[in-house]
């Protein structure tokens, strides 16, 4: 048997090439499993392998599993078809997968200046001012950003502030608190009535089928009537959180809270935004608390960037909302409402979100009245469309959150009540 590696039969060559393609795709993050490889190879036996279109679609249906993966596949397939090396050295940058963590301070393009009369008194410095010299990124063209103000900004960034390079470093007691929070949320998570009923001795619906079924065991004689009761299923909890510059001091704990909620409620979804929207549900999954938190942060490219709430919510409505993410859900927006975009857009999008949600809750960490915050333009615009406005709820007071969520389970809110300033703590 002197076949030798150099003289492959055409069949062998195809198999080698196909496996190479799968391997390259795997390296670039597609889930090209052995199953998929197998499917691809079987597909090759059925099509004309000299036809580019057929080859492309055979590979496509085997290896691509989401529309987002298509772009990577197209590039790799192009190389594959032309016989070029499948992975270049700088493959990452070629696919536009820039690493957010590498970008440094230039990313704060639209960072909202974090100063304003009221905040100086509102934000406790907890004596950390002297060691926080960290420079918070601000846009170069940002008018009114002088060195002096930077100084103030720096003073605010106590250890709660989160830079992309810093480690998240949760303390053991914090992690314990998170587990407790998860437990609380699980206990308190709002439920909704399901269409399905389950057998129950205490139920109040007479169950004809169940009665007949039970009588089968006794020769068709009915001894006991069966009843059923409606089941409760968890309602979807949808968090949409602001992680822009002005929310920086809360971001670290917010992220952890999201992790707890995702792990606890079976139907929880997490989104964060600064200038654009990122879905975090998947990144936050997993058993290892700290690792999934790191993973989640790495997934957000515009951490501590500027705020465009309206655009972010528009993004949500257009992509996820339209597919029914918010339908019947309890939607919790956590943001201070400092928005740089057009308040009209924001109002329109909040209204749209409210129309889909069972209940729209806005948690605003800033304690004072919205009227006294000159920068909270967006907040004022959004006010009429919010079911529950919760000001002054420090996201760091996580213990209160579960209670808050639990308290929302009640009935549908009375909408279009003109005075929206009914706030609970």
């Amino acid at each position, binding site marked *: 048997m002197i076949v030798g590696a150099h003289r492959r039969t055409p069949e062998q060559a195809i198999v080698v090439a196909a496996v190479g393609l799968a391997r390259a795709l795997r390296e670039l993050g597609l889930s090209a499993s052995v199953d998929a490889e197998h499917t691809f190879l079987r597909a090759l036996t059925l099509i004309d392998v000299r036809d580019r279109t057929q080859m492309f*679609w055979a590979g496509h*249906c085997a290896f691509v599993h989401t529309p987002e993966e298509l772009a990577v596949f197209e590039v790799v397939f192009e190389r594959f078809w032309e016989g070029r090396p499948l992975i270049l050295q700088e493959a990452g940058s070629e696919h536009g997968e820039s690493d957010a963590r590498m970008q440094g301070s230039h990313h704060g393009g639209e960072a909202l200046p974090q100063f304003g009369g009221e905040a100086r008194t509102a934000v406790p410095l907890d004596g950390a001012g002297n060691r926080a010299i960290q420079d918070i990124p601000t846009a170069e063209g940002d008018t009114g950003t002088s060195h002096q103000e930077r100084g103030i900004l720096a003073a605010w960034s106590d250890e709660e502030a989160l830079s992309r390079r810093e480690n998240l470093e949760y303390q053991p007691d914090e992690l314990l608190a998170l587990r407790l929070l998860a437990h609380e949320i699980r206990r308190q998570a709002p439920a909704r009535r399901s269409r399905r009923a389950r057998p129950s001795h205490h139920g109040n619906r007479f169950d004809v089928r169940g009665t007949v079924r039970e009588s089968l065991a006794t020769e068709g004689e009915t001894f006991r009537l069966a009843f059923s009761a409606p089941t409760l299923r968890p309602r979807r909890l949808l968090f949409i959180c602001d992680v822009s510059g002005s929310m920086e001091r809360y971001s670290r704990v917010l992220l952890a809270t999201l992790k707890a909620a995702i792990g606890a409620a079976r139907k929880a979804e997490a989104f964060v935004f600064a200038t654009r929207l990122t879905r975090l549900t998947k990144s936050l999954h997993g058993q290892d608390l700290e690792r999934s938190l790191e993973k989640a942060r790495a997934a957000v490219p515009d951490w501590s960037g500027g705020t465009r709430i309206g655009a972010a919510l528009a993004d949500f409505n257009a992509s996820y909302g339209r597919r029914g993410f918010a339908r019947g859900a309890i939607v919790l927006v956590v943001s201070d409402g400092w928005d740089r975009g057009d308040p009209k857009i924001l109002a329109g999008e909040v209204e749209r979100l409210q129309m889909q949600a069972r209940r729209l809750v806005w948690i605003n960490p800033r304690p004072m009245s919205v009227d006294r915050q000159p920068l909270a333009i967006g907040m004022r615009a959004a006010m009429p469309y919010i079911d529950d406005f919760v000001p002054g709820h420090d996201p760091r007071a996580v213990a209160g959150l579960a209670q808050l969520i639990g308290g929302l389970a009640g009935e549908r809110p009375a909408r279009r009540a003109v005075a929206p300033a009914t706030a609970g703590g």
Partner: protein
Amino acid sequence: MPGYNSIEELRTALTNECYLTDDGLATVVFLALRLRKPLLVEGEPGVGKTELAKALSAATGAPLIRLQCYEGIDVHHALYDWDYPRQLLQLRAGGSTPLYSEEFLLRRPLLEALAQPGAVLLIDELDRADDEFEAFLLEFLSDFQVTVPEIGVIRAQEPPIVIITSNRTRDLHEALKRRCLYHWIDHPDLQREVAIARARLPHVGQQLADQVCAFVQDLRWLDLYRSPGVGETLDWVEAFHALGRYEIDAQTASSTLGTLLKERDDLERIRSGGGLDALIARSAERARSARQGNFG
């Protein structure tokens, strides 16, 4: 199962059922049939995901069995249930058939699909079901068999053609995706949309179809909240036809726009500020040049 020997053959068969495919979809459906793998299709609402199953069923002459998923769907709705009233009657009448036998089994869609050789099984909007249901489907999709405890394993003589659709309200499980071929259906391009309109509505004039489709194609670029699907295009063409129009005019367009757009914001946006007139002028222009292009 009907054997299509080539992609073209399958494509022709689907075209005869007024379902027009592009290269990608034709190839993937062909492979799904030949590899006997379920096909998972995703795409915007109204691109013809469900229609695909209907067309396949019509083309192959196999019955279409549809399982519409919803939250809380379970075995008794998807797979089988026992016909208790009949069992009771049998018991009272003193019949001899065992109570838990196939005779008293109510077949729900999945079981029905196994019983009918080569059926087309449409599992519609799987993302609406809970993840547990997805896990339950795994056995079914990989081996085309189900286990009924009282009877045993029921296997398909000939596995059904399975089309699964999803609207992506949540990610389907990897394990499920691994068992399927995947395809994302896009909105058709102008030429194909005109062809679809002509095929589905043969009584409508070419010019009207051209113009409406060009109009809709432009609309899809406008970043509307809810872009119209092919079904809505067809409705709009029909609306013009029913009103006796042979081409788009501003007044009729404005009054029938609700057939096409179902969001107040979108409607207002198109109707206001001369947007409608501009779109109509453009679509007439495009329709004309497309015609000339075809002849040239």
